[in-house]
């Protein structure tokens, strides 16, 4: 018999990752599952992403964020899975106990057979990037502005400059324009945008908002509130080039300068993190370096498509249920994945071939945009898998599925890299 404070599976975070993991663990036969969410409702970041573009792969329809979330919330509720809102997980330990706090129940410690981490990510703040000038009011991260405008109905400004051309910045440039603000420019320090082409066309070009690539902010003016911003072109070493400055009179700066997985809890449990992804090192089951603690979604790697978050979370939930039922084979990995030439990182980091059911899905990002390359997986000199790619960009995650037969009996490193396409004679 399990006591009141003991669960088979505890899931930290009720965003799309936590929801899908809970549903899949239930389907895998787990009876006593608990989802813990610090916010006032389930759904995570999706509840503020009111634009369309979610669910094309999972539902074959184009949904908004709240619609995508609501489908999973309904399914979870219909399965009778327990969840608690306004409940913050304060600490996680490697014995799979968690300390939680809520106004309803106060402080409690819960024990689980398996834990799934699904805390998502947070935005890089201005402190993380160095911008000269004063620090007046009127500077928001794009995600915070999105929440104010879309959920609270508060407009954050009238004349806006956006720094960073990731998808959230592009989406907010359009959103602010539709709400009556003038978006003067989007400045991107890199020579390419990390956002989807579709968002550049439909969020910027449609509204005649200029995108300045290889540009950064060189000055912010204003004492109490932002009054002006200067941007300038940068050289190959990202230093501003004198004489290229453009000045804007504006009251608001939105920062869309990247997301980092939210891993304070993981650190407290002694979970090993990958310095490149910022998320836990995981194996083929999405299990972290601590046995029985699994992770999925933006806490592992920042995803651009929620559909892949759902897939990853299903995997984590499925294997967490297997772990809780004693069905996972423990022990050291057979294979370690390695990001080779042109590849920034690969998830999962390690593979125990004996736990694979059909295939392993390697997910990765490239270091730079490029065209016509082979995405190749090698074991030593031996070719394991090769996929021809016409178009690759760091903004879009790539994946390669390798059937278990191809990995049977292998040990050592699996190297993933980009290779030139040989010219057909």
């Amino acid at each position: 018999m399990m006591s009141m404070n003991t669960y088979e599976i505890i899931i930290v975070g009720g965003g799309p990752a936590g929801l899908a993991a809970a549903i899949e663990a239930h389907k895998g036969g787990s009876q006593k599952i608990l989802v813990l969410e610090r916010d006032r409702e389930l759904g995570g970041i999706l509840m503020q992403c009111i634009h369309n573009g979610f669910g094309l792969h999972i539902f074959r329809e184009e949904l908004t964020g709240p619609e995508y979330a609501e489908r999973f919330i309904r399914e979870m509720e219909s399965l009778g899975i327990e969840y608690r809102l306004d409940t913050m997980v304060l600490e996680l330990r490697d014995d799979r106990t968690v300390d939680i706090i809520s106004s309803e129940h106060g402080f409690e410690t819960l024990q689980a057979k398996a834990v799934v981490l699904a805390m998502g990510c947070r935005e890089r703040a201005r402190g993380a990037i160095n911008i000269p000038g004063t620090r007046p009011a009127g500077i928001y991260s794009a995600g915070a502005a999105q929440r104010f405008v879309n959920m609270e109905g508060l407009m954050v400004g009238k004349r806006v400059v956006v720094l960073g051309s990731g998808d959230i910045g592009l989406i907010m440039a359009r959103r602010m324009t539709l709400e009556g603000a003038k978006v003067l420019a989007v400045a991107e320090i890199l020579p390419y945008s990390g956002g989807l082409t579709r968002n550049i066309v439909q969020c910027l070009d449609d509204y005649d908002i200029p995108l300045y690539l290889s540009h950064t902010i060189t000055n912010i003016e204003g004492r109490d509130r932002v009054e002006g911003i200067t941007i300038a072109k940068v050289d190959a070493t990202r230093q501003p080039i004198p004489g290229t400055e453009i000045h804007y009179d504006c009251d608001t700066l939105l920062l869309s300068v990247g997301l980092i997985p939210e891993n304070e809890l993981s650190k407290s449990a002694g979970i090993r993190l990958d310095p490149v992804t910022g998320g836990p090192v995981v194996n083929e089951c999405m299990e972290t370096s601590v046995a029985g603690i699994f992770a999925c979604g933006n806490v592992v790697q920042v995803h651009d498509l929620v559909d892949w978050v759902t897939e990853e979370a299903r995997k984590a939930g499925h294997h967490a249920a297997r772990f809780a039922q004693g069905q996972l084979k423990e022990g050291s990995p057979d294979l370690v994945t390695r990001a080779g030439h042109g590849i920034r990182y690969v998830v999962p980091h390690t593979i125990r071939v004996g736990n694979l059911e059909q295939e392993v899905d390697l997910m990765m990002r490239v270091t730079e945009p490029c065209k016509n390359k082979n995405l190749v997986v090698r074991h030593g000199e031996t070719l394991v898998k090769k996929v021809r790619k016409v178009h690759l960009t760091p903004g879009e995650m790539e994946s390669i599925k390798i059937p278990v037969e191809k990995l049977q009996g292998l040990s050592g490193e699996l190297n993933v890299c980009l290779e030139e396409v040989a010219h057909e004679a």
Partner: protein
Amino acid sequence: MKRELICIVCPMGCHCSIEVDATAPKGYTFSGLTCKRGEDYAIKEITEPTRMLTSTIRIEGARLPRLPVRTSSAIPKERIYECMGMINALRVTGPVSMGQVLIKDLFGTGVNLIASRSL
């Protein structure tokens, strides 16, 4: 007249130009496109471009002050600001359920404005 476009049908994002040419099979000549799907996109973009519109409306008697809404399918691009005007004038009282029709048949297009969540 020549128009410059970026095709968004697939992630390639081909930069292309399209020009009216009565002698060409489709009535236009293209350059820069990699495949046929791009041609249909380019023709639609210069003849009758459409877009999905998502926004929020004021809601009373609910946990939050704003309800997210969207058009049930794409509307003519040049109607976007007009549609925003209608959205900004609209007020509803909760509860509202996901998919509920808030404005029927926008501009006679058969497209509805619907709620994107229950609230």
